[in-house]
């Protein structure tokens, strides 16, 4: 089985280690991992801010880059949602057909491990670890991923603690975070104010982690945040 990893623009620069851990995890599960060098950004920042022409250009570029991939796996529910649900409606004609084909082979990492590989037991590397899981909005509501990451974490022995605001938006939202920074930060505050005492906060999405850790930092709170890919690799090792 061949997987083309789409590291995403954010993953490449801000979560490079997590992307490397995703590669390690997939290889450990018997998958051949490729990294198409032409990949850049899926276009979501442009799309969400209304810059549709720019989003189309990036979508067409991404389609070309991943044209030969057997599967595309992303360490991001948000970007995976862009490929699966937005591309087919965003593009037209032959590109839309191509986008529909790509959508069917595109998965967020935890979704791929559980749905495609059928694995929920990675190991017991997270034994006794108290974890808070933030459900990224697009993973949760666009891809309808809820149980998959929790099953993988719990399967590895982690204790996923109840968190009142675990399904609420962190306030990132791409350009939203800088267009309305005070509202955005207020939303992160609601997450942080309700956070139970844990060893680590994790999520499938780097954007959310960047937002939550940035706000926690500004509040002077030392909360460890780690990308789900890294925790899942830790579960194995």
């Amino acid at each position, binding site marked *: 089985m061949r997987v083309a990893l789409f590291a995403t623009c954010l993953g490449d*620069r801000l979560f490079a280690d997590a*992307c490397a851990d995703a590669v390690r995890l997939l290889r450990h599960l018997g998958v051949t991992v490729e990294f198409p060098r032409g990949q850049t950004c899926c276009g979501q920042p442009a799309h969400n801010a209304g810059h549709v022409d720019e989003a189309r250009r990036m979508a067409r570029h991404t389609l070309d880059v991943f044209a030969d991939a057997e599967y595309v796996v992303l360490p991001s529910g948000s970007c995976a949602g862009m490929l699966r649900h937005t591309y087919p409606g965003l593009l037209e004609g032959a590109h839309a057909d191509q986008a529909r084909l790509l959508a069917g082979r595109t998965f967020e990492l935890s979704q791929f491990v559980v749905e495609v590989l059928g694995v929920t037991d990675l190991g017991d590397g997270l034994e006794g670890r108290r974890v808070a899981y933030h459900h990224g909005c697009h993973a949760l509501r666009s891809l309808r991923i809820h149980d998959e990451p929790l099953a993988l974490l719990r399967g590895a022995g982690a204790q996923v603690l109840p968190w009142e605001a675990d399904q609420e938006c962190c306030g990132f939202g791409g350009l939203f975070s800088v267009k309305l920074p005070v509202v955005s930060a207020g939303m992160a505050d609601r997450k942080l104010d309700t956070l139970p005492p844990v060893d680590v906060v994790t999520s499938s999405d780097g954007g959310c982690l960047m937002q939550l850790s940035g706000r926690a930092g500004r509040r002077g709170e030392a909360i460890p945040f780690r990308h789900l890919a890294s925790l899942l690799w830790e579960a194995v090792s």
Partner: protein
Amino acid sequence: MSAPRPGGYAQAAADAIRNHPEVRSAVTAATRTFDTHRVEAWKEIDSDRWRDWARDVKQNVLTHLDRYLEEAEARLTQRGAHVHWAENASEALDLLARITERHGVKRVVKAKSMLTEELGVNASLEARGIRVRETDLGEYIIQLLGQPPSHIVGPAIHLSVDDCRRLFHERFGTPLDATPDALAAEARRALRADFLAADLGISGGNFLAADTGTLALIENEGNIRLSTSTPRVHVAFVGLEKLVPRLADLSGFLQLTSRSATGQAIGTFVSLITGPRRTGEPDGPEELHVILVDNGRTRVLADTKAWEALRCVRCGSCLNICPVYRQTGGHPYGYTYSGPIGAILAPGLLGLEEAMPLPFASSLCGACADVCPVRIPIPDLLLYWRERAVEAGLVPGLERAGMKAYAAAAERPALFGAAAASLRHIPWDRGGRALPVLGAWTGERTPPAVSPTSFRALWKKGIE
């Protein structure tokens, strides 16, 4: 003080969050309670099927609106109601003025109605020396404070019980530790006199059934029934989109709206009004006027994307679930309808330029779409208006140019990689002056931790 407008949203929202944390607490607590009740109430029905049905019925109404409107007008007229058509707010207010003048109206009682807020009914009446009394408890409270509603269903949602205690203490001399029941009793006592003295009652309309000309009103306090039946004249303002085809459809819509709004199986009082008092009937108004209001709705109807927003039944469930709305309540939106539904109604009804930046006042988390009883694709419509805003040049030129450059780079992987590599060298904490986008991030958050080596480079080296 000039009337608030959407253009002040960013500043007003920031002010509310920074300087009025009690508003966020009150709104968050109340909306979470509303939503918890909705979840429970939806469990008792096959909510997915009900929502499909409600969407389809409303879609049908809007598709054949001309026919249903004429049918409703004919039925209402047959039953002795006066039907009027208002293309915009000033026509609606003129129609009301003619009615009040003819009847020499001095005192008006009002049932809660968002449409009358949209039209500015109270200010118009008061300017002509007519005393207006809001009779819904929440509306009454904010009328005493001189504020607009902060929520479609709970207009005083931004206030705490203590805020109300202080207000009633100042106005009526009730003790500062009065129970909510005691405050309600005080309001009831004051309002009773207003009901009995009123010459005219004003209401909105939750639904208007075309086949019988029946106006349906949902409430919990009984004030709507009193406002519409005690005074000699009843004027109902009804938006064109409020029609349902048949009286039988009300069964589903009344329940679905109540379940979505407050989690009740149905409102405590439902009034079905089919005309003025008839000979031999003991109560009801002598005259019933129904003013059918367009005020931008047909323009929205003609827009093949935006028209879906007209399905809205004003339950407020999208406000209740919205993490953006919960930060501030409705006031910073500067528009009658706030939250997610307000952000997609405002561009259609007010015009996009006037509604800016409301379509951008959302993180696109999608929670609203999951709770809408008529399945309005709110995030898609927010994106639609954003796209239109970019086309119309309503976003900053710097953003436009930046996005073009970003897309151009994204098509050239080597350039994109080089640009990404430079992220590491951005002087984040000093960047605000050069690039406002950096300052907007670091004003509220610490800079992101850029990986020492990009993944691209790690891959090239080989991942063990």
